[in-house]
C-alpha cells in the first residue's frame, strides 16, 4: 500500500464539525433539545489512506460519515474537500464534488432499487451526473461489474438474484462508477457471512491500490478496522477521543475508553479466555445531555475532579488523545491505577 503523504493537502478536512438532531415534543412540535450526534469533530483524511472510524452504537460514527459527505446538514463547523470549503454550497454547486466523494452502505439490499438490473443500477450514477449517455453508461457498467468480481452475465439480473456478498459488490461498483477519490464505507461487511467478509475486504484493498482510492472505514468490529486501516479514530458520544496510526493505537491506547474497547473484544484464542476483562460501568449517557467535562468521566475508572470540570482537547500530534490523564505503556500492564476488574470466571 502506498504511504499516504501527510504533507499533501488533505483530501477531506473537518473543522469543529457538529451535527445535531432536534428533539421535538408536544402538539406544536416545538424543539425542546438536541441530540448531539456529532459534536465538534476536527479531522483530516489524506490521499491514499484508510481512516478507520470505530465506536459503539450511538457514538456518532455513521452520522459523521454522512455529514462529511454532506448527506446530513451540519449544525456548525466547516468541511473542506481538497482545500475548498463546501460546508454551505448549494446542491448545484456541490455537484462537481459529489462524484469525488462516494459512500457504500452496510445493507446493500436496502440501498439497491429491486426493479433495476445490476447493469442499470451501476449505470444510474453515470446518467444522474450526466457523465455518459445511456449506451456508454451501460457499457461502463459492464466493465465495473467485472472489476468488482461479478460474472459478465450479472448485468441483466436483479438484486434479489444475488447473494449478500455479491450485492455489496454491486454497491461498490455503483460508488466506483463516478470515479471517486474518497469513499465512506459504512459498516460494509457487518451484515455479511463471516466467510464472505474477507472477500469484500480484499476487494476494497485491491481497488484502493488500483484506483488510488482513499477510504473512511466505519465499523464497530475492531478486527476488520485493524485489518484495513492506516489510521484509526475512536469516537465516544459524538467526539473523537483518540486518533493515531493503527499500530500505535492498538499497541498502546492512551484513552481509557480505547483501552477498554480493545480489552472487551473477544479474542479468537481459547487460551487467553482467563484474561482480566475491563469494561466501562453502566450505560452510555444520553447524547442530548452529555456529561460535563470529559464525556467519559461518568464511566471512567480513573476519573479525577478535573475530568468533571474541564473538557479535554484532542492533542498530541500523530497520536492524539482527548484525556487529561492519558495512559502510558502497553495494553497489558497496569498503569495509572486503572483498576482491573476480574469479570471473567474461570
Amino acid at each position, binding site marked *: 500500500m502506498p504511504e499516504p503523504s501527510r504533507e499533501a493537502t488533505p483530501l477531506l478536512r473537518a473543522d469543529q464539525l457538529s451535527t445535531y438532531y432536534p428533539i421535538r415534543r408536544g402538539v406544536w412540535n416545538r424543539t425542546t433539545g438536541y441530540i448531539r450526534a456529532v459534536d465538534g469533530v476536527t479531522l483530516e483524511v489524506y490521499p491514499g489512506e484508510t481512516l478507520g472510524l470505530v465506536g459503539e452504537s450511538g457514538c456518532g460514527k455513521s452520522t459523521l460519515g454522512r455529514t462529511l459527505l454532506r448527506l446530513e446538514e451540519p449544525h456548525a463547523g466547516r468541511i473542506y474537500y481538497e482545500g475548498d470549503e463546501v460546508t454551505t454550497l448549494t446542491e448545484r454547486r456541490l455537484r462537481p464534488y459529489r462524484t469525488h466523494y462516494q459512500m457504500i452502505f452496510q445493507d446493500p439490499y436496502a440501498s439497491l432499487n429491486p426493479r433495476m438490473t445490476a447493469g442499470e443500477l451501476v449505470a444510474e450514477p453515470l446518467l444522474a451526473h450526466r457523465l455518459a449517455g445511456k449506451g456508454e453508461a451501460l457499457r461502463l457498467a459492464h466493465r465495473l461489474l467485472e472489476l468488482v468480481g461479478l460474472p459478465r452475465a450479472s448485468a441483466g439480473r436483479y438484486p434479489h438474484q444475488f447473494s449478500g456478498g455479491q450485492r455489496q459488490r454491486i454497491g461498490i461498483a455503483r460508488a466506483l462508477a463516478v470515479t471517486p477519490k474518497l469513499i465512506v464505507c459504512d459498516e460494509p461487511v457487518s451484515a455479511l457471512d463471516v466467510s464472505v467478509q474477507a472477500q469484500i475486504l480484499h476487494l476494497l484493498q485491491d481497488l484502493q491500490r488500483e484506483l488510488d482510492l482513499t477510504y473512511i472505514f466505519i465499523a464497530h468490529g475492531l*478486527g476488520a478496522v485493524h485489518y484495513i486501516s492506516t489510521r484509526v479514530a475512536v469516537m465516544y458520544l459524538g467526539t473523537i477521543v483518540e486518533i493515531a496510526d493503527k499500530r500505535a493505537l492498538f499497541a498502546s491506547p492512551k484513552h481509557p475508553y480505547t483501552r477498554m474497547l480493545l480489552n472487551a473484544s473477544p479474542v479468537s484464542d481459547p487460551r487467553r479466555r482467563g484474561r482480566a476483562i475491563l469494561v466501562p460501568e453502566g450505560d452510555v449517557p444520553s447524547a442530548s445531555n452529555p456529561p460535563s467535562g470529559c464525556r467519559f468521566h461518568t464511566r471512567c475508572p480513573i476519573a479525577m475532579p478535573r475530568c468533571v470540570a474541564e473538557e479535554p482537547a484532542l492533542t498530541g500530534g500523530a497520536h492524539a488523545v482527548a484525556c487529561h490523564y492519558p495512559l502510558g505503556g502497553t495494553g497489558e500492564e497496569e498503569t495509572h491505577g486503572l483498576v482491573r476488574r476480574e469479570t471473567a*470466571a474461570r
Partner: protein
Amino acid sequence: MKHVLEIEELTVTFRTENGDVRPVDDISFAVRPGETVCIVGESGSGKSVTSLAILNLLGKGGEIGPGRIRLAGEQLTEKSGAELRKARGKDAAMIFQEPMTTLNPVLTIGDQLREAIRLHAGLRGKAANAYAAELLREAGIARAEQVLKQYPHSLSGGMRQRVVIAMAIAGKPKLLIADEPTTALDVTVQAQILALLKRLRTDHDTAILLITHDLGVVAEMADRVLVMYAGQIVEETDVFTLFDRPLHPYTRGLMKAVPAISDGPDYRLEAIPGSVPDIGRLPQGCRFHPRCPAAADRCRGEMPTLTPAAPAHLVRCWLAGQSPAS
C-alpha cells in the same frame, strides 16, 4: 444424569412451494450438566433451527422427524403441548439475539418477571416480588427494585438482555439455550453478558448451548464446539483442539478469514471463495466442495460421513485423515 440434552439423528423439514427443504439434516449431539457447547455456523447452517427444534418452537411448516430429543432424561418429541410448555422454563430456557422478541412492550419488567416466576417457580405475591428482584440482581442489575417498575423501552439493549436472562433463569433451568445473545450488543456490553453467562455456569452448573457465528465468542465461552455448514455438523471437538488443529477445510477457512488484532506485520486474509449455499439447492457430494480448496473427485460425488479423525474429534471430510489440506 449424564446428559442434560441428547439429540439423536434430528432432521427438520420445511415444506415450501419448491419442495421440501431440510435446514437441519441428521444432527446428533449431547450436552452434559454445566457444559457450554457452542454451535458455530453462518446463515443457512441450521444452527438456529436446531435450537428452535429443541424447544419445539419451529412454528407452522417446520416438522421434526425423524429424530429424538431428550431433555433432562425425558423424551421431548413425544410430549404434548402442555407438557412441553412446562419443560420450557423448568428444564430448558431460551434467550434470543433481540431481547424485544421475548419482552412485552406494554408490561413492566416486574409484571413479566412475576409471570415467569409464577409459571416456573410457583411463587406469587410478595414472595414472587422478592424473587424477581433477586433474579435481576443475579443477572447483574444493581437497581433491581427500580427496574421492576420500568417498561422495556426505557432500558438499554444490554439491560434488556439481562432482564431476559433473569426471566430465563427463574425456573432454575438445567439448560440455557442462547441464540446469538450478544450479536446485537456493543463489545463492552457483550463482554458483560458473556461474563454473566459464565457465572451462571460456575454458580449453578447451568449447561449452556450457545449459538453464534463469532469465533471470538466461541473461544471465550465454549467447552466443546459443533461447526455446522448447510444443515450438517461438519466438525465437533473440544475448543482447544478446534483452535489448535481444525481439521475440516471449512473450519480452517473460517479461522483464516477472520481478521485478528495482532501487532505482527501486515498480512493478507484468506478468503473462502463463493457464498453459503441455498438449502433448497445443495450441491451433490460434500456440501462444502464447491468452495473447498482441496476438493477431490470423491468429494463431488459422495457425501462424507461424520467420523472420528482422532479421539473425541469428529469431522465430515474425506480428506481429513490424510495429510492436512492447506
